[in-house]
């Protein structure tokens, strides 16, 4: 006997197990980042003075990073759509592009962080920088986690396309949902930290 609905949808819910699982996982992630955003609001409203993000942080670099991530979300969808259209080579291309864009994001983030450290700006300097490094740091960990999974399905895990293409397509869809969430977190982080 096999566990039902691992690949096919259950008729009354319209979902397969993994997709429901990732949505619930993302609900939990919303609460994690929600808790941290609440902490940001709490600290800012209670602070005597709070710097404007743009005075300390590098807005042009962050705008570039926003572009990188939004584009990577598009390529992620394209890689899943390619699998739906049975075009495995295109999947390879788009998944590779997604990885490249994610890596570019990390490189920019690296230069942003080191520039802060060079100017003597550390998490312990004040609470704005503290929450900036905590939130973006946690986001970077999420990016790296996503990259590991995408890389796995791009290289070694892609063998599954031969044995079980439907299951493989589902897996890319699930990774994609996670990736869009990570992208969305950045869409919130960018204005909150850099612009407000």
């Amino acid at each position: 006997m096999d566990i039902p609905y691992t690949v096919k949808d259950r008729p009354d819910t319209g979902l397969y197990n993994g997709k429901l699982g990732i949505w619930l996982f993302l609900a939990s992630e919303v609460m994690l980042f929600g808790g941290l955003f609440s902490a940001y609001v709490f600290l800012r409203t209670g602070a005597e003075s709070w710097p404007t993000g743009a005075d300390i942080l590098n807005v042009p670099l962050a705008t570039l990073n926003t572009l990188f991530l939004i584009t990577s979300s598009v390529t992620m969808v394209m890689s899943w759509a390619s699998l739906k259209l049975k075009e495995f080579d295109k999947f390879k291309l788009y998944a590779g592009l997604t990885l490249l864009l994610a890596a570019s994001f990390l490189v920019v983030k690296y230069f942003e962080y080191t520039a802060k450290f060079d100017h003597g700006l550390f998490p312990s300097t004040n609470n704005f920088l503290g929450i900036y490094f905590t939130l973006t740091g946690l986001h970077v960990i999420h990016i790296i986690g996503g990259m590991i999974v995408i890389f796995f399905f791009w290289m070694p895990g892609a063998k599954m396309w031969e044995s079980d293409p439907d299951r493989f397509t589902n897996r890319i869809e699930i990774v994609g949902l996670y990736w869009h969430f990570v992208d969305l977190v950045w869409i919130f982080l960018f204005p909150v930290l850099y612009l407000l």
Partner: protein
Amino acid sequence: MSTDHHKDSIWTKYIFSTDHKIIGLQYGFTSLVWLLVGFTLMMIMRYQLAYPGNPVPIVGNLLGEGGIIPPEMYNSLGAMHGTIMIFLGVVPLAFGAFGNYFLPLQIGTIDMAFPKLNAASYWMYFVGSIVMIVGFFVPGGAANSGWTSYPPLSVTATMGQTVWLLGMVFLITSSSLLGSVNILVTVIQLRAKGMTWMRLPIFVWTQFITAFLLLLAFPPLEAASVLQLMDRLVGTSFFMPSGLVVSGVVQNYTGGGSPLLWQHLFWFLAHPEVYVLILPAFGIITEVIANNTRKPIRGYKAMVYAMVFLGFMSFIVWAHHMYITGMGTSIGAFFQTTTMIISIPSVVILTTLFLSLWGGSIRFNTPMLFALGFIPMFGIGGLTGLPLGLAAADIHLHDTYYVIGHFHYIVAPGTIFALFAGIYYWFPKITGKRTNETLGKLHFFFSFIFMNGVFMPMFVQGLAGVSRRLWDGGEIYAHAADVLYLNEVMSISAWLLGLAQIFFIVNMIISLRGKKTGETNPWGATTIDWTDTTSPPLGHGNFETVPTVYRGPYEYSVPGADKDFTPQSEKG
């Protein structure tokens, strides 16, 4: 995941198994051991409280010079008692063990939705619990800022607190994330044919709602843990106010943070956590009561809706733990109102259970005795909570032994009695053997007496104003002098309560060595975990053929039926 029958070594069969039943048993054994450890810590603390400053017998040498518990050690024991009991003991036993083992059997599926994640969740829990214990061996001892870890105390505390936070991150990821996603997907996706939502046993409903609470309430504590780790390791001051002075020394923090932020994030987790502790207990008690009164429970739907409402409300009552932090009266009024509202579904559930006894032909076996003990004990725990939910009364009672008495009545003779009821009730299912009734009854009656001996005097001391965190048990308090003798009463009760558990351990060992009875359904139960699988259940796969469900879960004594229970899978 196919269930191919490759050759199982002892490692793949019992250690790294992905079978939900084995994982449930792993959770069960581990958490029972932790319950005993957590209880032992408390039995040591109770010696210090009863005879302050006297050397502790037997284990004294481990604790401090001359066998006397130093105050820092006492704080560590207290913090770790709470942490171990809640996060390593009761939640993994109620949710990890019972949920894993019986939920798939009750809804008619061959395994959980994600068997590998399930195994991962157990091993994360295992690693997290080891990390927690490592705290005892780092310089300065284990975390000593209470299980609530309030800053600034916890941020300036010794290294044990860092270990506590790391352990907590592991435990949150295991029980909250992996376990709850698994249970939710299993219930939503893998119910057998005909198992509609309103045919689910109450036990499944409680696990389902518990999983939602774990999924959504634990991440804020993870966020808070990350922030506190930043404060401790990187030197941020999220929780550190400006100008903090500890023991006359100005602290070297940039400041500007707020200790209240931690309390908000912590209690946003920890109030739903209370319902994580009690909901699975409701589920087990409902199964036992319906089975042993031989009649349907009264108000199945009322119970389900009450539980859903309870789960929802539990997210908006958290600040009733914080009345004395100086919050405004309008915010206080909001949280007092929601707190009074949330008591309504609890009362509905307890009343339906109580009314279910009416007109039943009650069988007084061991699980039923524990269930019957649960009802008044939970009632006492719940009703003594009402004064704490009202700010005016709470200002007097806050942080006294009254609070300790209140929540222990809910968790100890409440949830833990329910867990014992569950163990005795499902023991024949797991092993195919019967437990010894005489030993079980002795276990119940002694536990019942001594539980009350431990916790009832706490209300008296608390009303007299004895603070909950005193190393000397209130000896230096002038106004505590009249109630101080109760410390000895409570301590002796606690040790005797410990001795009473020997009945349980001996019973388990004797029963496990006994012969299989060959009965599949010794209690005459209706749910499909009893009627459509063998006892013990088959290996990976559970059912010969997955049953179809035709009726509700509690069809006992149906008029005109040939026996006094009608299984869910019986056509008609």
